[in-house]
């Protein structure tokens, strides 16, 4: 990083089916909590970045930058960014770029999504906008379907059993019990995952992250200091359509973004104490851990069998509950991951990883087509 970018903190709404709240309500609530928690003056904010994917399609609201800006008394300049499920991470990345280039000194970063006001099929169709409209959508694929294609290939290549795969979702649910903002705060036995209805085989309902509403906001600054800084912010892309990929069992964008992030921060893989991972589907979780280089190809399931990924394990993954148990309001996820990392590094997390000093936030858009990686460090 060219400048030291401090994470001052932030706030979020509960994630879930929030029928009583509109997209604007969610944004207002997250922004208010962020300002309250960080104890800054609203007028200290000199720019706003919001990450959102489907405002127009599912909430009838585009032009979100100005909408957020309007929540502040001095309506600072604002912009909206989009990279499907990585929209939140991209908003943080964009804010870092603005701070590093000295275009702003303190930025409010928001991620928000409102999905449950429209029927399920409409959300299903709208989510397919994240795939290739010419090559993927005409066959009648859904988004779980695209990930199921990678899951079939992955399970075939490495012989993963249904029983073992169910440990992945169970681990996320175990972590979310203490998280007051999570959509599902109850433990889930692996057998329940194995018995849940098929969505797109081999993926079952409880292999998938849910459809959720929610918003999260954080405040980044180069002027005001805090005990947590962003050590690296990297963005990478891969071919949009699955039919153009060299591999079905690995996503090149994760490898490239993480390698560059480690180089930017001058860290080793093993320096990282906890990970907020983009666990949109159980098999994707395994692929991500392999692409991040924490195990050999086809071996990630062992981490779950040995409970290494629990918050007291050797490689804590998603101590917040991840996308699976916290919910996945598309644009909000990437921002909420940074907020959860901040809480871990300042010792405020409900499911605290002991002595967490360095954290990784990994946010993916499409079927691994975009990846945003952030590295955070406690400098207290």
């Amino acid at each position: 990083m060219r400048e030291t970018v401090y994470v001052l903190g932030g706030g979020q709404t509960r994630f879930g089916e929030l029928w009583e709240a509109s997209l604007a309500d969610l944004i207002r609530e997250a922004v208010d909590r962020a300002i309250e928690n960080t104890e800054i003056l609203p007028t200290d904010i000199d720019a706003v970045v919001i990450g959102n994917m489907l405002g127009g399609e599912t909430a009838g609201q585009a032009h979100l930058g100005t909408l957020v800006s309007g929540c502040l008394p001095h309506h600072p300049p604002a912009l909206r960014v989009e990279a499907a499920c990585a929209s939140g991470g991209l908003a943080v990345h964009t804010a870092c770029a603005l701070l590093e280039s000295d275009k702003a000194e303190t930025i409010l970063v928001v991620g928000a999504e409102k999905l449950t006001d429209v029927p399920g099929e409409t959300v299903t169709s709208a989510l397919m906008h994240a795939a290739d409209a010419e090559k993927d959508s005409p066959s009648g694929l859904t988004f779980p379907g695209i990930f199921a294609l990678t899951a079939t290939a992955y399970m075939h290549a490495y012989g993963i059993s249904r029983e073992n795969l169910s440990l992945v979702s169970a681990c996320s649910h175990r972590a979310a019990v203490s998280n007051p903002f999570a959509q599902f705060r109850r433990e889930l036995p692996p057998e329940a995952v194995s018995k849940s209805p098929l969505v797109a085989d081999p993926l079952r309902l409880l292999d998938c992250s849910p459809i959720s509403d929610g918003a999260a906001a954080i405040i980044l600054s180069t002027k005001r200091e805090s005990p947590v800084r962003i050590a690296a912010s990297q963005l990478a892309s891969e071919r949009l359509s699955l039919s153009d990929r060299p591999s079905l069992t690995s996503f090149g964008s994760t490898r490239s973004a993480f390698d560059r992030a480690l180089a930017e921060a001058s860290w080793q893989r093993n320096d990282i104490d906890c990970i907020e991972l983009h666990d949109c589907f159980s098999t994707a979780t395994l692929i991500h851990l392999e692409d991040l280089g924490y195990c050999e190809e086809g071996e990630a399931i062992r981490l779950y069998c040995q409970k290494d990924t629990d918050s007291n394990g050797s490689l804590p993954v998603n101590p917040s509950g991840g996308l699976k148990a916290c919910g996945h309001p598309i644009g909000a996820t990437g921002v909420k991951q940074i907020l959860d990392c901040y809480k871990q590094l300042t010792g405020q997390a409900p499911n605290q990883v002991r002595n967490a000093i360095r954290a990784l936030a990994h946010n993916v858009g499409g079927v691994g087509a975009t990846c945003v990686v952030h590295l955070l460090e406690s400098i207290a």
Partner: protein
Amino acid sequence: MRCSSPRVHRVTSRSPTLTLNPRPFVDHIPALHRRTKELEKERLLPGKILSFTTIRHPPNGFGQEPYTVALIERIDGSRVLAQLTREGKPHAIGAEVIPHLRRIRSMQNGLHVNDLKYEVVKTADIPLFTVHAYVLALTGPCGVGKTTITRSLLSLFSSVAAQVPVYTTRKSKRTDIDPYITVTEEKFETMVKHGEIIAHTVLRDRDDYRAGYRKEDIQAIWKQAKLPIVTTDLRLLEGLSKALGRETILSCGLLPPGTSRRRMLSTLLHRLRSRGQHTEKQIEAQLKVAEADLQAYSDHKHLFDHLLVNDQLETCVESIKELVTPNGRV
């Protein structure tokens, strides 16, 4: 089926007035018509299933019934995402499919959209991702001793190893790359197009000629539970590792003796001259290729498992023997 681009779907309707027909437009422009025909041919290729899933909750317009979508690799190597037809054999990874034009969805205004669906015609005989055995590949510049080493290996392991026949377009016959099969240029091209030849290259002797390996031959040797041996150059090696998977190839690069690249090249020059088969001009050309080959060892490290110096034939053969049979078993 006609279309002006690969993803404009032919739209049909119950009401004739709504039928969209791009034909007159296409017919007036010969080049476009030809291209459309080409695309049609391209799209109608059969293929194999790489992965599949059954969609239980279809998006708008695709009906209520679950259907199966597969990622298909067509025989020309291109990939497509498409639905499978309900009839046909059970689907699996590696199963063979052929395309049909079928109705795929209905739009709200009553228009029906047709697209290709694939029917499974043959279930998978060989699982696509399983490594059965491996291929021993020997790579090196001309004159380094690939042929001699291969012969020596074959005489040592005649019961467990076999050389993969080379398909070539070369007219003149030479005895040192037995067994090889000469085919015409056209036949070679067809075999490449149909995916029978999985790796091919252009070699230079007195004239340029093409040479390649057939997948069928390698599989036949595997079926006899033998180890296929291939002598390759960089392009053949790349082709093989792409077609069979890098992990399927035990790849040995052979180096001429010498402490520097210049010394190595002078050894090769000496060997080529002493063969007495080529003119000085041809030798010069071969040396240029050899220099590029030596550079390839450092530029394409990922393609080689071991680099061996062919100083003495016996030692080199012995080291390959050890690589192939690490436990000393033959």
